[in-house]
C-alpha cells in the first residue's frame, strides 16, 4: 500500500529534520572543525582558516592540560559510577523491602535532587562545604575531626565534586533498580527459602544476578552522564584549584568560548564523543550488558 508508505515517512519527517539539523550536521561540523585551525583570527577573516589534518589531535596528545582534564573526568567516572550504582542498589532494595505505604515517601525523598538544577545544587553545596560557616566542617569539628578546605585543595576538590554528583544522581538509578526488582518472581525467593537459604544468600544468589542486566544499563547511563561533567566544576570551583577540577567539557568550553580556539576545542569534543561510543560498545559486549547479548 503506497499510501501507507508515504504517510509513515511523513510521521517521522519532523523528527528526522530536527535530528539532522541539530544533531547529525553539528556532529559532522565538529569533526570538520577539528581538522582546521579555526580560531579568533579566522572569525575576523575567513582567509585565515586552514585545513591542518590531524594536527589538533597530535597537539592534544602532548597537551598536559588535556591529560589532566581526562584524568579529572575519569576520576569522577571511576569513583562516582560505582558509588552511585551501589547507593542506587542499596536504597532500591531497602525501599522494596519495607511496607508498601512508606515506599512512595522514601522514593520521592531520594529522587528530588535529580529534578533540581545542577547550578542551584552546586551553589547550595558550596555553602555546605564552606570553611567558615559551612555545616559539613562544623559537624566534623563537633566530632573532633580536622576540618579540611574542601574546595581549596586540589585533591579534595575533585572528591567534593564527585560527592555532589553522586548525591544528585543516585535517586535516578534507585527508581530503575526498584522497578527491576519488582520483576523478579517471588517463586525464586520462596524456593530458596524452602531450601534454607538465608538473607545474604538470597541477596547474592538471586537478587544481584537477576539485577545484573539492569545494573549494566544503569552503569552506561551513569558513565555517559558523568563523562559530560560541566556545571558542577563551573560553579563550585571554576575548574580550580590548579586546574584540578577542569573536566573535559569545561576545557572544551574554555578553549572554545573564552579563547576562541575552535579547532582545538572541537578535537576535545570529538575525543569525548569517541570515548563515549567506546563505553557504549564495551557495555553492549560484556556479559553484564543489557539483555546479556
Amino acid at each position: 500500500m503506497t499510501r501507507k508508505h508515504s504517510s509513515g515517512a511523513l510521521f517521522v519527517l519532523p523528527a528526522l529534520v530536527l535530528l539532522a539539523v541539530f544533531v547529525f550536521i553539528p556532529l559532522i561540523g565538529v569533526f570538520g572543525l577539528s581538522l582546521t585551525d579555526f580560531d579568533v583570527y579566522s572569525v575576523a577573516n575567513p582567509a585565515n582558516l586552514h585545513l591542518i589534518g590531524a594536527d589538533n589531535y597530535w597537539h592534544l596528545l602532548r597537551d598536559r592540560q588535556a591529560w589532566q582534564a581526562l584524568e579529572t573526568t575519569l576520576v569522577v567516572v571511576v569513583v562516582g559510577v560505582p558509588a552511585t550504582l551501589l547507593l542506587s542498589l542499596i536504597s532500591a532494595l531497602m525501599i522494596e523491602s519495607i511496607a508498601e505505604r512508606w515506599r512512595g515517601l522514601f522514593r520521592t525523598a531520594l529522587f528530588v535532587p535529580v529534578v533540581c538544577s545542577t547550578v542551584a545544587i552546586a551553589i547550595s553545596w558550596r555553602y555546605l562545604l564552606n570553611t567558615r560557616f559551612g555545616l559539613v566542617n562544623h559537624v566534623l569539628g563537633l566530632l573532633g575531626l580536622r576540618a579540611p578546605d574542601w574546595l581549596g585543595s586540589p585533591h579534595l576538590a575533585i572528591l567534593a565534586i564527585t560527592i555532589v554528583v553522586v548525591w544528585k544522581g543516585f535517586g535516578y538509578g534507585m527508581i530503575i533498580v526498584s522497578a527491576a526488582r519488582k520483576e523478579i518472581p517471588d517463586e525464586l525467593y520462596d524456593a530458596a527459602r524452602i531450601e534454607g537459604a538465608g538473607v545474604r544468600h538470597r541477596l547474592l544468589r538471586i537478587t544481584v544476578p537477576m539485577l545484573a542486566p539492569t545494573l549494566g544499563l544503569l552503569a552506561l547511563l551513569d558513565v555517559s552522564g558523568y563523562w559530560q561533567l560541566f556545571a558542577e566544576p563551573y560553579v563550585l570551583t571554576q575548574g580550580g584549584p590548579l586546574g584540578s577540577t577542569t573536566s573535559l567539557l569545561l576545557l572544551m568550553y574554555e578553549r572554545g568560548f573564552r579563547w576562541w580556539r575552535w579547532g582545538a576545542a572541537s578535537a576535545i569534543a570529538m575525543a569525548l564523543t569517541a570515548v563515549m561510543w567506546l563505553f557504549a560498545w564495551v557495555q553492549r559486549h560484556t556479559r553484564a550488558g543489557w539483555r546479556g547479548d
Partner: protein
Amino acid sequence: MSLQNRTLRAGTYLGLAVLAGATLFPLLWVTSIALMRAPEAAAGTPSLWPHHPTLVNVINIISRQHLGRYFFNSMVVAATTMALSMLVAGSAGYALARVEFRGRRLVSWLVMLGVLIPNQALVLPLFEMFRTVHLVNHYAALVLPAAANPVGIVLVQAYMRGIPAEILDAARIDGASEWRIYRSIVMPLMAPMLAAVGVLIFVVSWNDFMWPMIAMQQESMQTLPVALAAIDREHYQDIGLMAAGATMTMLPMVLVFLASQRYYLRSVIAGSLTD
C-alpha cells in the same frame, strides 16, 4: 518474626531515614538560608533555622537581579520545548513502531545513534549555525535543539510496540486515513507515555545549562540557571541572596515533580527498558 528479621527491618527503616535526610537536608538548609538576614546566614556557628525569618533576599533577587524576567524566559522555553517534543516524539515514535514504510529501519537506527551522541559536544557548530541565521539570543536557539531529543522518540516507540497491532489494523480495514487513526486512536492510547515524555523534557529543558549559557549572551534572554550562575560570579559572597536564587530555581521543578510524579517516574523506568 524472629529477632534477626526484626533487627533487619528496623535497620532498613533507619538506613532509609538517614539517606532521605542526607538527600533532603542540603535542599532544606539552602531554603532556610534564603530566609535569613546576612549576619545569621554567615554565622560561624551555622544556623539551621531562620530565627528572624525575612523575605529581604527574595525581594532583592527579584527587584535588583530581575529574577522574574529569567523565570519568564525559562517558562517560555521549557513549555515550548515540551509541546514541540511531544508532537515530534509522538508521531515519530508511533510511526517507527506501528507503520510500515520504506526506510523505517534506517530511521530507527539513526534515532538510536542520536541517543549516543553527547549533545554538549555539539555546541561549537551549533553556535556557528545559529549565529549565521541570526537566531542567537532568540528562544528558538534553545527550543529547536532541545526538541531534537531522540530519547522521547525511543520512549514512545517502545511504548507503542507494547500496544496490540490489531487495534490499528481494524481501523485501517475500515478505511480510516492514517492521520485520522493517529488522532482518534493512537493519541489517546499513547497519552500516558506522551505525558511522561512531556514532563521529562520540561524538567530537562528548565535545568539545561551549557548550551543556554552559550546561546543566550544577552542578559534579558537568559534562563534561570544561566542567570543564576552569572549572578553567582558577582555576588557569591551574598549568601542569602544566592540561596534565595538557588531555591527559586529549584522549587518550581520540585513542585512539577511532586505534581506529576507518576508520569515522571514512568518515563525514567521506561527509559531503562527500551533498547
